């Protein structure tokens, strides 16, 4: 069981990351704007999954099922972009 303090800390971190991603969006960093926005989103999702959804203290089987969703999504993205990114017409 996770201590209440952890929940408040994660909540604080999520708010800070939200303000950070919004602020950075106003600065022109070229392609890096995308990279930073997505990295922060992934970090936030991991925080929610790990602590709020208790993945940190869950069974391996649960991790496997949660991971399966992500892996299939990655496969779908990879194969579609393997096509679009290599088209020469």
């Amino acid at each position: 069981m996770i201590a209440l303090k952890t929940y408040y800390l994660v909540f604080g971190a999520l708010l800070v990351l939200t303000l950070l991603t919004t602020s950075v969006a106003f600065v022109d960093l070229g392609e890096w704007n995308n990279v930073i926005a997505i990295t922060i989103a992934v970090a936030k999702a991991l925080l929610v999954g790990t602590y709020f959804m208790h993945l940190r203290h869950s069974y391996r089987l649960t991790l496997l099922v949660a991971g399966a969703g992500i892996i299939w999504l990655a496969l779908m993205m990879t194969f579609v972009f393997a096509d679009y990114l290599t088209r020469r017409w």
Partner: protein
Amino acid sequence: MAQAHNVLAHQFDDLEQQHDAAQLGMWAFLATEVLFFGGMFLGYAVYRYRFPEAFAHASNHMDIMLGTVNTAILIASSLTVVLAVHAAQHERRRALVRLLALTIVLGVVFLGVKLTEYLHKYQENLVPGLNFAYIDDAARHSAIFFSFYFAMTGMHALHMIIGIGIFGFLIRGARRGDYTGLYHTPVELAGLYWHFVDIIWIFLFPLFYLLGRHL
């Protein structure tokens, strides 16, 4: 253990096994939800790759202030949900009811802000199919952006409406005293669902509100 007797279905050996099975089932459902939303994220990615300028220009019509505030509101509702699960685990019934009610309030505020944004988009002629007039050469394909915007945030909002309904149902159960330290699986599973919906928004926010802001 009279309580345990009531809530234990006959196909399970004990409450723990029943709880683990329910949790696994919920995660299997969430994995299918990842793919359900994943299809839309993929469509978004393909069209953004094909029409980057149109997407960047169109995204500047989003209200970044409202988007940021709504993100914070949704994160706060995720906090109230974990606190509710915690309260259920410790049999603090009144706290559980209050936290579930607070979650519903935050969810409704989020949807209210979303509705305001939708109305603004309608007034600005930015709703494809209903009222769209975006005459700008650089943004000829911006209708695609707004189609994805309404489809994805709309589907997200639908998930939230369902979640709010579930929390209403849980409040009734919590008032009746259905949830104890031994048995509070419904609260936990609804929490997982709500956090998942939160995660979807965490990705929708940068993809729609932030992408062309620096231009």
